[in-house]
């Protein structure tokens, strides 16, 4: 029995793989030539920086280089974790990552489902086209617009004053408690329509007869959403969730950098900003690298954990 399986696998690999021979190499020389160039490029630009991780374990001095600097073990990491700022920065990154993930995720699904319920074809198309627009704008423009709308003379303050919710204009950017919600709102504003594309595609793929059957059973709009649409897009929801979990720590650079200011520093600084501050502005390459390594490792662990959970529950997996 065992040998039979082995024969089968062997036959399968034979079918999939071309066996190595000099004749085959000669035949594919063009492909091999280009892949050699591409691999060389990849080694220089994607893999060589990994060697830079060594810096985090060294008393790195630019003049001595990577090979001349003395190794000092985990001293930089010890310093990193005894730095109260770094611990706060981890908290900020995680908090904003999770808040952004949940809010953009829920809004995209909600928007996709509700857009799908619009019966007028033209209306649907117009709303959808408009919904993509913010995705194509840079964070520079988005934060500029947000600054205008939320400034003390901006439209939001004007409306809040008009409806007597506020007594006097409020500077949203000066209070730490508004910063995380602002970042979440900006993310939702920018990405909802774009993120909804994949769910809309998934909804289109649902078998229409399921909806007809539900109608005959007397299901209303909401019941159909609950029992047909949501289960139908469940695999898509799971796979995008999985892909985004690994990105939780990546959720913070541009917007926090552009919106942050001295007054909200305690909640706005993220790991990436910390790396930038230590590494580039202060010139302590080793500290910056150590913080970057920490971020990469946590991201990989998150992806693996999420993947394992998905596997355990019989959901779609990334790898």
């Amino acid at each position, binding site marked *: 029995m065992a040998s039979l399986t082995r024969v089968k696998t062997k036959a399968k690999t034979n079918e999939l793989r071309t066996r190595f021979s000099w004749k085959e190499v000669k035949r594919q020389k063009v492909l091999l030539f280009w*892949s050699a160039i591409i691999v060389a490029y990849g080694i220089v630009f994607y893999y060589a920086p990994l060697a830079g991780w060594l810096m985090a374990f060294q008393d790195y001095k630019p003049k001595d280089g990577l090979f001349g600097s003395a190794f000092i073990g985990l001293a930089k990491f010890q310093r990193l974790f005894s730095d109260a700022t770094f611990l706060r920065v981890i908290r900020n990154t995680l908090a904003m990552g999770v808040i952004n993930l949940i809010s953009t995720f829920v809004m995209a699904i909600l928007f996709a489902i*509700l857009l799908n319920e619009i019966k007028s074809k033209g209306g649907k198309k117009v709303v959808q086209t408009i919904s993509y627009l913010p995705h194509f704008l840079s964070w520079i423009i988005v934060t500029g617009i947000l600054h205008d709308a939320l400034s003390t003379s901006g439209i939001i303050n004007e409306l809040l004053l008009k409806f007597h919710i506020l007594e006097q204009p409020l500077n949203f950017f000066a209070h730490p408690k508004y910063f995380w919600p602002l970042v979440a709102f900006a993310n939702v504003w920018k990405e909802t329509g774009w993120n909804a594309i994949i769910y809309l*595609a998934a909804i289109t793929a649902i078998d229409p007869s399921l909806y007809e059957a539900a109608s005959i059973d007397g299901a209303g709009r909401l019941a159909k959403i609950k029992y047909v649409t949501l289960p139908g897009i469940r695999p898509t929801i799971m796979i995008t969730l999985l892909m985004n979990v*690994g990105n939780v720590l990546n959720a913070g650079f541009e917007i926090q950098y552009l919106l942050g200011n001295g007054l909200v520093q305690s909640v706005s600084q993220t790991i990436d900003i910390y790396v930038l501050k230590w590494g*580039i502005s202060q010139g302590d390459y080793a500290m910056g690298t150590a913080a970057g390594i920490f971020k990469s490792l946590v991201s990989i662990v998150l992806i693996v954990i999420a993947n394992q959970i998905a596997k355990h529950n019989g959901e779609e997996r990334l790898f």
Partner: protein
Amino acid sequence: MDNVVVRKKKNMSAPNVIFVICNTIFMIAFVVITLYPIINTLAISFNNGTDALRGGVYLWPRVWTLKNYTTVLQKDNLITGGYITVARTVIGTLLSLAANAILAFIVSRKRFLFRKELSLFWVITMYVNGGLIPTFILYKNLGLTNSFYVYVIPGMISAFNMLVIRTFMNGLPDSLEESAQLDGAGYTQIFVKIISPLCKPVYATVALFVAVGQWNSWFDAMLYNRMSSQYTTLQYELMKLLSSVTNQGNSVESMKHAAGTVTPTSVRAAATILTMLPIVCLYPFLQKYFVTGLTLGGVKE
């Protein structure tokens, strides 16, 4: 017959009507929140700057002027930034598309000897990278800082875009390649004359992704080319304009500064509109491409 009547009645039932009303309100609110800030910026960009400081300019300019735009077009740093941004978008997109297409072509050849290995080599780069500091040092050592090349050389290949093209190429029939080979065509000819023309839609998708990224990026300009003003990009110049405005606010200082008819706020509005203009004009026509691209990218091997 009876059935149809019953169903029609059900569609008109109270919960459904409420649902339709709520949904319509939600969509209108969504559209207003999305569009208002942009239209407001547009109105301010055409409004007299000092007049705009009084507030009350919402959807339409109150005192028309083109002064904001002429001021922007006279600023040398914005003009230089504009040229650099256009150049990096065009060159960067072409280079990146060519590199990703060649790589995708190679890894989608069924007979290629290192098919799995080469794919894996690039997929790993999606999850692991050296990080900001080692990358910065590398570019510095390669002499890419303070140069235009830093915009177009380093990020040429992206594993995600490669996978999108590969998925598309894998969907093409193998017989195309086989019959071309029988006719004596080499891989170069197969790539240029047979596969690439069929891949136009997916090339358009990837080109769009890359071009938008190039047009909008500013961080690389700040990090690598801060010292050489001849290579800064439009977005970075816009950011400098933004931070100068936020620091001044609508203070008396900026009122005084605006002895003429333009203020930092109104100039920035004009610059913002000019920066987003090409994208806003183009993206509605490219919709079908990015929808295909995202759906292709979601397909895992």
